[in-house]
């Protein structure tokens, strides 16, 4: 894919940008620097203040929305001929602009806390902290608990984790818009799959256990005890601070977005996001699947190449196997790219094994 780019400046730029060329590496470096400045220094604050934002986080939210809108325009110019793509991207951008930027901006003007409705525990790990639940009004605490423990798993069971990862979530939204030019860079090697399986479940485990520990120290332990300090203290090495720095800042921001131009746009979602891991388990048990039309696949590789989660879709398609993978975020690009219309996302009762057709025109004599 990295052609030698002699078809004019635009093509040379685009190839370099999209295929780990110098421009791609510089883009990655720029993103990483931005996130380091944002999370670990105060350099962004004066810029945010000069633009009239209450905090650097609202400024970041504004930039985030702009990138998503620009990326959505780019994505739809290429793939907008599918109604699924149009509705999905419009919803995702709409949710981000309304629930993750405008509402948090406006709510304090009405005496309400700055609340991000579209981020759910365990992705927003702080949502279910005992302190948070006590600090917000009751209706918001009920919302936090209800979405995390009831609505999210149920919806994932019936519609797959895509309802969140590809329609609501801001991380997924940025990946599918701004990150779309790099989606073919996601590795589909066995090695990357082993890495993903270990790390995504490890982070999920840590997210759940740490939330449990926070409740434990809050309701059981004395605030002055050593255990309390280790778990919920304010020193940089306390569990609470470490999780925020490692998972929330480094993995989700610096690595997750900074490495878009190198490892594809779903580095965070695929390898580290505790929400994706958890919803993936419900998806695996649930009704979502990718249906394969038997004996029509020509093994071209468009589906596998353009899968942003590194799933080797082609291997299922060429063996006539409808499937559900925990990793699949249901972006629908495999079905969209397929030149033979072999793949289709659907929510349906689980298939009986005998419906996996043989389809071979072989007759035993």
């Amino acid at each position, binding site marked *: *894919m*990295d052609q030698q780019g002699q078809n004019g400046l635009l093509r040379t730029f685009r190839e370099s940008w999209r295929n780990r060329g110098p421009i791609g590496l510089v883009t990655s470096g720029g993103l990483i620097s931005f996130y380091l400045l944002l999370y670990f220094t105060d350099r962004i604050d004066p810029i945010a203040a000069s633009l009239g934002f209450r905090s650097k986080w609202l400024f970041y939210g504004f930039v985030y929305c702009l990138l998503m809108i620009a990326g959505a325009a780019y994505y739809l110019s290429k793939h907008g001929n599918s109604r699924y793509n149009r509705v999905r991207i419009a919803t995702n951008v709409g949710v981000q602009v309304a629930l993750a930027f405008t509402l948090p901006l406006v709510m304090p003007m009405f005496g309400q806390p700055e609340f991000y409705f579209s981020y759910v525990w365990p992705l927003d790990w702080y949502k279910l902290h005992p302190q948070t639940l006590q600090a917000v009004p009751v209706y918001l605490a009920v919302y936090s608990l209800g979405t995390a423990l009831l609505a999210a798993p149920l919806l994932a069971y019936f519609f797959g984790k895509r309802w969140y990862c590809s329609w609501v979530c801001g991380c997924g939204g940025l990946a599918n818009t701004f990150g779309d030019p790099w989606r073919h860079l996601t590795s589909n090697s066995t090695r990357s799959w082993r890495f993903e399986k270990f790390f995504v479940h490890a982070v999920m485990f840590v997210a759940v256990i740490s939330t449990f520990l926070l409740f434990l120290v809050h309701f059981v332990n004395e605030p002055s005890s050593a255990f309390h300090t280790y778990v919920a203290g304010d020193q940089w090495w306390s569990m609470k601070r470490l999780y925020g720095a490692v998972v929330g800042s480094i993995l989700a921001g610096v690595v997750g977005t900074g490495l878009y131009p190198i490892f594809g746009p779903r580095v965070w979602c695929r390898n580290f996001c505790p929400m994706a891991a958890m919803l993936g388990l419900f998806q695996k048990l649930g009704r979502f699947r990718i249906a394969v039309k*038997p*004996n029509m696949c020509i093994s071209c590789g*468009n589906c596998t190449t353009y899968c942003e989660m590194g799933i080797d879709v082609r291997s299922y398609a060429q063996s006539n196997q409808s499937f559900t993978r925990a990793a699949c975020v249901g972006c629908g690009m495999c079905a969209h790219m397929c030149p033979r*219309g072999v793949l289709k*996302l659907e929510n349906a009762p689980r298939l009986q094994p005998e419906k996996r057709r043989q389809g071979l025109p*072989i*007759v035993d004599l």
Partner: protein
Amino acid sequence: MRIVIIGNGVAGMEAALTIRERDAKAKISIVSEESDHFFSRTALMWVASGQLSHQCIEPLERDVYPRMGFERVRARALGVDIEAQTVELAGGRPALPYDRLLIACGSRPRPGPWPGTELDGVGHFVTLQDLEWFEAELHGGPGKKGRPQNPDAHLEASSQNSPYLPRKVLRAQRNGRPPAHPAVVGGGLIGIEAVEVLAAAGIETHFFIREPWFWPIALDDRESGFVTRRMQDHGVKVHLSENIERLDGTTSVEHIHTDRGQYPADLVVVAIGVMPNTDWLESSAIKRDAAGGLVVDQGLECSAQNVFAAGDCASVRWWNGAHRPEQLWYTARDQGRLAARRMLGDQVSYQRGVLYNSAKLMDLEYTTVGLVNMNIEGEQNWYFEERGRVSSTTRITVAEGRVIGFNFLGRRWEHTVLTRWIEERRALPWVLEHLGQACFDTELTPPLQISQAEKDAPLFGPAPSVMKETTRAPLA
């Protein structure tokens, strides 16, 4: 058992895998002049357009040869000695002995019958070498990443008549620029693929089609007009009913002359069909049909003992009794698997079942099931054109009061459901009533709606066909 497979396309590779699954000890040699790795030939156009890399179109990991114990022989096969049971190889290599031989050497492009096709800048779009030529002309070179390590290994051992010889690239002559006046000749699938690649590169292309409309073997004039309009929307100059007379130029092609006029051309892709790649078997005592296809029986065995054929080069028996090749990806795969079982001694036979295929023509999905454009005795056609949020065409062929075929453009359809309806001998009103069940469109696509008046619209007579004689529809 010593098994030799000529060709590592889908038929050869599926056969090798099927044999290995059953017999861990068989010595399997795969002879290929074209490439080191098995790749999907149907995906060449996306590599040429830059959408996929060379490695993306390889369905299996590259270590499949050592992992499965396949011996890979990069050489041109020169002939088969059916008495001694050996395959002769080019380049002075020792002959390969076999107990069972599978010939799965596929197709080669049909050369243009006009003067001037030997000029530089005239090529085809069938082999890996064609792809590299096309990529080099359009983009200045094939993608570096994922390029096969040894694409030209066959050179030392090849003959001049090989379809796997690299062609001269004219890009340097054009000061490093892509062609300004490319032309594609031949109104079939490979032709439109080449046109799409050129259109994607933003180059105005002339598309010369001998017939009065594009792809008459599969589409009728109205359906074809649908596709032609899409091509024109993308800036393609489509020339219908225009015959090439000659190409001219000093060393490289400069003009293309037709019966309607003369056009500048600095790159010509000749895509007027493929033919079985079997001229290397001329002196071998293996029966071939007039077109060169290896005549096989229902067990895919050739006229010589222990020699089998599968894929594009095998002339199999069709539903109407004629022998000709089935040049499709999945039939090649099925034939490879079946030939392998037969080579292992299974008493299995090849039966094709209801025909089906699909393609994508520009941005239009195409699905066909059953007998369409086949000149069936007493055939009638029902046609509906959808214009709205989705543009699509639906054509259903009816004979003796039952549905025998479907042709669709613009939407996706589940061919297994349609196949079942044909086998169940359903009548047209029933099929129209239940058509939604066969829909395979992506989610949220507005459903196809057909008014009762449209459903009751009169049928029209037989669709134009390349089949000269009418045939009775087989009892499904």
